[in-house]
């Protein structure tokens, strides 16, 4: 680069000749040089700034583009996962206590149409109606030819139906994979399982949501992939459940009842081995709930848990047990039983006249309302309420069904003496059969509170003590006497030493008062009484045994024979050996070996 001198000689001489100041030229040149330097520095700085800007732009663009790409691409599973993680079903299975399937998933397909892609909508609609007769042709044609871009046709189709639709050959008819919930045993244990339906639906999959029973109560658990496909194991035994449902169904028809329920519970743990409620339904095709009328008329109604009834004389044992616990009576104490007992404007009557006084055991054996009312008078309402609360009669049961909270007992607001007396023999307080079963299990468990459960392994340890073991033992002995010489004589199953208490309660009218000819017959039993293992509560709704000259409705004639048959069938299945054993040694000679 050639530097321009500050004082170029030619211009200086020229300026001098003209008499101008040559310093002006020098200053001018210094100024020009300074400007040039400044411009150059500025250019360089601007260049650097530009460079920096471009670099930042590139960096931010890279980040932005990457974010956009990540946001817009379909999520993809890592192809090279080391474990080759098993492809899990969307919803875990439900099994019984022996691992037999109660609910599982089955892969199937849903059928949908994209009308713009349909070649011949009318023909396709005709063919579809041939395959699925329940479809409405007019509606299909309207959907296919209208402005709609997407139409669901069927939620679940079988492989045969899928092939038939394939054979129509229209490219606008498409299939989406679906997992559907399958209950292979049909109506067995339907009230416990509940049912499921599709939730949010997409083309490639649909959510399965539980709608009732354990399916709903454990909805989140069943859908949680963290469980690694482990099934939900219930305490139900499929064999027992099916046997009980079969006998209960027969018994219900024989006794002309409109509904029935039975609960079989293990005493030590509170595990429910079987819980049946009739009429039942098929959870694969769950009927719609009733929109009007009495909910208990619907097959969806779970009588064992939701049905709160006045359970009648089965409550008497609680009053007697409490009186014994408080030391007020012992099994031999005489109690006045003159009927009717007049209290204010109320009269308490017995079914028969049982004489002026009876021992406490006989009050239970003969099921005397008057005698029980007298015992409750000794206890008093406050203590009775507190005792029933500890037995769990004032709260809904803790069983793991979504319906459990709806089975809230109907408890009187006030608890005057007359209410206490009627509650003593089971009127005035409504509870579910499951409440009764857990209370009887509590007595059978030596007085330690038993909480019912449906989930295997969820049983808690022994509960709080409600009564002493001695009182529980005496109560059981009384219940055994009910079966050997009292109202439940039909319940004496040979070899299984059944103990129990019958209860026949008049049904309450919705308008107030009681029906004359409609009862709830209950038999609550414990077997075998020498070493109580199981509790069976069986309730028939409006039974009437018409074999005699006039219909018999008492539990002794209706619920007890059915319960006896249940015990006869179920006890061998539970592995209980009859305790007396066959007495004859048929065809065997006892020989003495010398």
């Amino acid at each position, binding site marked *: 680069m050639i530097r321009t001198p500050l004082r170029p000689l030619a211009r200086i001489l020229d300026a001098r000749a003209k008499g101008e100041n040559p310093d002006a030229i020098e200053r001018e040149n210094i100024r020009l040089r300074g400007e040039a330097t400044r411009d150059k520095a500025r250019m360089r700085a601007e260049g650097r700034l530009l460079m920096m800007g471009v670099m930042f732009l590139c960096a931010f663009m890279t980040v932005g583009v990457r974010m956009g790409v990540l946001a817009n691409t379909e999520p993809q599973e890592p192809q*090279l996962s080391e474990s080759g993680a*098993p492809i899990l079903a969307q919803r875990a299975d439900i099994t019984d206590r022996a691992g*037999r399937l109660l609910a*599982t998933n089955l*892969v199937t397909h849903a059928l949908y149409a994209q009308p713009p892609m349909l070649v011949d909508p009318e023909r396709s609609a005709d063919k579809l109606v041939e395959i699925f007769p329940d479809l409405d042709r007019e509606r299909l044609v309207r959907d296919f030819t209208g402005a709609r871009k997407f139409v669901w046709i069927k939620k679940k189709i079988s492989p045969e139906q899928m092939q038939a639709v394939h054979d129509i050959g229209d490219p606008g008819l498409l299939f989406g994979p679906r997992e559907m919930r399958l209950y292979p045993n049909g109506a067995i244990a339907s009230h416990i399982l509940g049912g499921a339906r599709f939730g949010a639906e997409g083309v490639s999959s649909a959510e399965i949501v539980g709608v009732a029973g354990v399916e709903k109560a454990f909805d989140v658990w069943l859908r949680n992939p963290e469980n690694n496909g482990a099934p939900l194991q219930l305490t139900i035994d499929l064999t027992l459940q099916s046997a009980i449902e079969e006998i209960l169904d027969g018994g219900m028809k024989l006794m002309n009842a409109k509904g029935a329920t039975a609960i079989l519970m293990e005493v030590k743990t509170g595990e429910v081995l079987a819980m049946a409620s009739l009429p039942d339904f098929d959870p694969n095709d769950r009927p719609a709930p009733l929109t009007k009328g009495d909910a208990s008329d619907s097959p969806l109604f779970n009588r064992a848990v939701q049905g709160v009834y006045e359970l009648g004389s089965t409550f008497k044992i609680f009053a007697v047990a409490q009186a014994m616990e408080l030391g007020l009576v012992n099994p031999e104490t005489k109690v006045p039983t003159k009927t009717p007992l007049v209290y204010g404007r109320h009269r308490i009557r017995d079914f028969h006249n049982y004489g002026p006084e009876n021992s406490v055991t006989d009050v239970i054996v003969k099921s005397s309302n008057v005698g029980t009312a007298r015992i409750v008078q000794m206890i008093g309402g406050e203590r009775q309420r507190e005792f029933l609360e500890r037995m769990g009669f004032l709260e809904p049961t803790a069983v793991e069904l979504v319906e459990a909270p709806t089975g809230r007992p109907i408890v009187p607001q006030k608890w005057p003496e007359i209410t206490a007396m009627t509650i003593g023999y089971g009127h005035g307080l409504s509870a579910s059969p499951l409440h009764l079963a857990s209370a009887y299990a509590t007595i059978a468990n030596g007085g330690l509170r038993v909480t019912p459960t449906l989930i295997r392994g969820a049983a808690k340890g022994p509960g709080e003590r409600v009564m002493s073991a001695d009182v529980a033992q005496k109560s059981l002995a009384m219940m055994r006497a009910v079966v050997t010489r009292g109202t439940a004589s039909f319940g004496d*199953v040979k070899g299984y030493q059944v103990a129990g208490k019958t209860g026949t309660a008049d049904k309450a009218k919705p308008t107030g008062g009681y029906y004359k000819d409609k009862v709830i017959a209950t038999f609550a039993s414990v077997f075998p009484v020498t070493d109580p293992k199981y509790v069976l509560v069986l309730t028939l709704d409006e039974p009437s045994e018409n074999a005699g000259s006039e219909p018999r409705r008492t539990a002794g004639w209706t619920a007890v024979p059915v319960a006896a048959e249940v015990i006869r069938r179920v006890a061998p299945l539970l592995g209980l050996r009859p305790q007396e054993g*066959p007495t004859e040694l048929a065809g065997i000679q006892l020989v003495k*070996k010398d």
Partner: protein
Amino acid sequence: MRNFIYLATALSVMGLAFWAYRVNYETQDLQGELRALNREIASLHEGLSVLRAEWAYLNRPDRLRELVDLNFERLQLLPLSPEQFGSVAQVAYPLPPEEPVSEPIDVIASTQALEAAE
């Protein structure tokens, strides 16, 4: 010498490129195989769950009960009842083995035999 280094570098670059190329394709092959295997596992799992469901469906108590009723003549199955529990006392002892006849027995009672026995 310099030429040799250039040549060696070029060759090694080519060798490495060839190696990378092969490894790349091998990996892609293996990935394809893995995908196929995963697909197979998934379809087998699906088949397994279908079979399990079918097994449960075929073994449902209602159906078994019907089958037992239908085939009663051959199977003669009835529900388990308490009478079917036996006790150990009902089982007969095995008969003692017959002892071999070691000496001839005199079947006609004679006086000599009686005397011999005494």
